[in-house]
């Protein structure tokens, strides 16, 4: 079984063997809801490609993205933590493919293997660090910095330089007005860091984006490498 997902490909042979009979390859269709607030989670997804967003939902339709998951991680983290649901929603932001497993099978496997449970807990801890830095970015960052950070994080997890994103979606994820995203992306384009086509944002100068987001990017990535061994293939550029 060819596994592009880092979490699965870095399990011990024994731990992977516990999951393998239950892993099912699936499409991650754009905007597919994987988890709804306060509803029992059905599957854990291990993406090969694509981007999944974790979104905090408040009153009266207020929402903001708290983190992204791609081939570096997994969904259903509340299940890893020992519960069956959360107050957040999880949906597909950039389409891709994944392997999924029913949560009952995942729980059984974790009960049988402390090393599997630990591996998955490290994935959760890494994600918590990412979410903490999303709070940092949202609380202290300018929209341009935050957009740059988001684009680099998506770029880290995807193949190639094209990010299929609409301005509308990026605005919802960042919790800002559409016009704010339009201006920020235009500024990034003027700096030669990206080019914006109809529904795709192309990364032209990744190092420049990283430099612009320097104060709010990098720490979670280093921590994720420490905890799970994941390192984006794009890091050396």
């Amino acid at each position, binding site marked *: 079984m060819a596994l592009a997902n880092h979490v699965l490909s870095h399990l011990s042979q024994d731990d992977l063997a516990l999951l393998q009979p239950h892993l099912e390859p699936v499409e991650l269709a754009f905007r597919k809801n994987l988890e709804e607030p306060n509803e029992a989670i059905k599957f854990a997804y291990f993406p090969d490609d694509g981007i999944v967003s974790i979104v905090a939902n408040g009153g009266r339709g207020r929402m903001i993205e708290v983190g992204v998951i791609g081939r570096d991680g997994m969904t259903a983290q509340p299940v890893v933590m020992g519960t069956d649901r959360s107050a957040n929603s999880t949906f597909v932001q950039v389409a891709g493919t994944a392997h999924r497993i029913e949560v009952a099978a995942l729980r059984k496997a974790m009960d049988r293997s402390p090393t599997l449970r630990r591996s998955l807990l490290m994935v959760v801890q890494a994600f918590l660090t990412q979410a903490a830095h999303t709070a940092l970015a949202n609380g202290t960052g300018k*929209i341009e910095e935050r957009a740059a950070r988001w684009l680099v994080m998506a770029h880290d997890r995807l193949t190639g330089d094209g990010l299929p994103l609409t301005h509308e979606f990026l605005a919802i994820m960042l919790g800002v007005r*559409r*016009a*704010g995203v339009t*201006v920020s992306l235009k500024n990034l384009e003027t700096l030669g860091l990206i080019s914006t086509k*109809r529904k795709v944002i192309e990364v032209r100068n990744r190092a420049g984006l990283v430099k612009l987001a320097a104060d709010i990017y990098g720490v979670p990535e280093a921590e994720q490498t420490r905890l799970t061994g994941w390192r984006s293939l794009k890091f050396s550029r």
Partner: protein
Amino acid sequence: MPVYFFHIRDGARLILDPQGSDLPGLHAARDEARASVREFAIEALQHRLPVDRLHVEIVDEDGTTLDIVRFSDVADGD
């Protein structure tokens, strides 16, 4: 629902809204434009730039400018 485009005027350059938004009417478009201008003002202050540097031009699908919303329209609060 009608589509409204929120183009942003920054001095000599006009930054075009590439996609537009479906909104129930001009009142909703004005609300969105006012919220955008408030957000621009916050960003401008963070960048140590003039708060009234940007304004929003609300344009319909035919390219007709329906309204222009500036910082002065939101400066005194609601």
